[in-house]
Every structure is written in structure tokens, then in C-alpha cells.
């Protein structure tokens, strides 16, 4: 097969690719004598009882030595007179296993069209905003607890609770709108919404303890 490739290239382009023959008397490459493979009568292979036997190499009428092709086949396109050469080896594409990392300021593919804020500040990491809202809601709980126990703090405590409730709704809404939802966000949202009684409970117990002593 390699020889047929060499013959093809030799016939279509110049004669420079066909290697010099050496050692044999043949001047030009001859086609394969297939009668040898058919096991015809002209074959002087070994035992005649075999229906198929590999004839010795010398019985092939093709005598030029098979050129040893390099491991990387160079793709040479040599035109007469111009000498333009295409760059040698074609790099094989490697399968990419790494997941695509989201660059900064890039939201999901189904994101909505940018509004006023996103047009004005395109470099802002908008895809982190839903996460920040959730973290804020988590961190505001001890702050809210300390505000609650101050005197005359009903408006402050209520507004802090209203802001936290707004972030509760907003982080899920923005994550869906900008197509940046994640499993971690879906997990964390109900956790910080309703399952953080430990901080105020311990604080309230501490308050009662201090009041009694």
C-alpha cells in the first residue's frame, strides 16, 4: 500500500519523490504481478498442496525496495518553479477533557439581553452576584439578631429582615434570568432561608443567662 502511495505521488507530481532505485536492474517500477498471489502455475512457491501459500519475496516482479517512510508523513506540495511549501506536519487535534471555564463577565447561553446596568458596567462579574446575595443573607443573621435585642430597634430589624427577604427572592430570580444556576446555589438557598435557628437560639439563651445572673 505504501508503494502504491509512492507511485501515485510520483505520477501526479514531479519525479523527485520517487527514491532512487538501487541494487536491481529494473529502471522503472513495475506493477505487481498478481498471478503470483493467485497461486498460479508460474509460481515456484513451496508445496503445491496448499491452496494458498505465501510466495517467496523474490518471486514478486516488483523489485525496487520499499522506501522506509518516516512516522510523520510530511505533506509537501512542491510546485514547479515556485518552491512554495505548505507547513510540514498537521497537528492532530487532541480531545479536550477540561471543562470550559467561565470567563469573567460571561453569563450562561440563555441569558437575557443586557439591561442598563449590564451595558454600563460590562466588566463587572455579574455571574457572581447571585452567590453574593446568598452569602449576604447568610451573614446578616447574626447582625439581625444583635439588632433585634437593642432598644427601639423595631424599624431597623424590620428593614433588615425585608432586605434579606428581597435577596432571598432576588438571587434565585437573577440566577435563572442570567442562566448561571448551579447545584450549590440550589442547595444553599433553602438552607439559609429557614434552617439557621442555631445562632439566635444560642444568643437568646445567652441573654437569658446574663439576665438571671
Amino acid at each position, binding site marked *: 500500500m505504501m508503494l502504491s502511495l509512492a507511485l501515485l505521488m510520483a505520477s501526479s507530481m514531479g519525479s523527485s519523490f520517487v527514491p532512487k532505485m538501487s541494487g536491481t536492474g529494473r529502471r522503472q517500477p513495475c506493477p505487481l504481478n498478481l498471478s503470483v498471489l493467485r497461486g498460479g502455475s508460474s509460481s515456484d512457491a513451496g508445496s503445491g498442496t496448499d491452496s494458498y501459500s505465501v510466495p517467496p519475496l523474490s518471486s514478486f516482479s516488483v523489485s525496487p525496495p520499499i522506501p522506509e517512510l518516516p512516522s510523520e508523513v510530511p505533506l509537501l506540495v512542491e510546485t514547479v518553479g515556485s518552491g512554495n511549501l505548505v507547513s510540514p506536519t498537521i497537528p492532530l487535534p487532541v480531545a479536550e477533557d477540561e471543562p470550559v471555564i467561565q470567563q469573567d463577565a460571561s453569563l450562561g447561553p440563555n441569558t437575557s439581553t443586557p439591561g442598563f446596568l449590564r451595558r454600563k458596567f460590562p466588566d463587572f462579574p455579574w455571574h457572581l452576584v447571585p452567590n453574593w446575595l446568598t452569602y449576604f443573607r447568610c451573614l446578616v443573621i447574626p447582625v439581625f439578631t444583635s439588632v433585634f435585642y437593642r432598644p*427601639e430597634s423595631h424599624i431597623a430589624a424590620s428593614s433588615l429582615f425585608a432586605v434579606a427577604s428581597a435577596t432571598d427572592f432576588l438571587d434565585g430570580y437573577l440566577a435563572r434570568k442570567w442562566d448561571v444556576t448551579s447545584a450549590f446555589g440550589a442547595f444553599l438557598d433553602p438552607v439559609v432561608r429557614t434552617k439557621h435557628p442555631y445562632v439566635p437560639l444560642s444568643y437568646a439563651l445567652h441573654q437569658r443567662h446574663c439576665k438571671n445572673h
Partner: protein
Amino acid sequence: MVSTSLILLSGRYGARVAIPASVILAREIAVSALREWMAEKGLREVVQVGYQGKLKTALTMTSLTLLLLVPVDGVGFLGKLEGLSFVLLYCCTIITVTSAASYFRAAVPALVNPQGS
């Protein structure tokens, strides 16, 4: 946040807030346990948050915001909000229980049938 403020308010008002608060918190624990169990079984979509759950959340946050606005001594305009906020809190408790009932009703086939494999 909701459970935090419920605990603090029940410390301030006593049983009037503590009984609805314990119902709401127990419902939250039960529904999250149900969700975790259904997620393990691979039936997460069955108990996803429906419109009743969203209504419950909105109503809870509104009632608690109003209840937090009431000053401790109960005077002034904001002090008049006490009755309204308590009514909202009790409505919120009822909707909490009904939404939990709808989740559990939807999950009954998975709960009752033994998982044969």
C-alpha cells in the same frame, strides 16, 4: 432568616408567636427531609416548589416584616399593626400546613410502594 426571626419573636411575645412558629419550623424540617428522601430516590421533580410554596414564602415574609415593625411597648401607629400582623401570621401557618400536605400527597406513591429491585 425566617426561622431566626420566628425564634426571636417568640421570645418577645411568648405563646402567641411560639405556637405558629413551632408549626412552621416543624413543617420546614419535614418537607426538607421529604425532599432529601425523594432526591435520593430520583424523584426530585415530584416535590418541587409549586405556587402554594411560593405563596407561603411571600406571606411568611410579609407577616414577619410587619410583626417586626411593631415596637416593643406597642405605642404609636406602628403599634396598631400588631393585630394585622398576627392575623397574617396565622394565615401563613395555615398555608404552610396545606402546602406541606400537597407535597406529601404527591409523594405518597413513592412512600408507600416498596422499592423492589
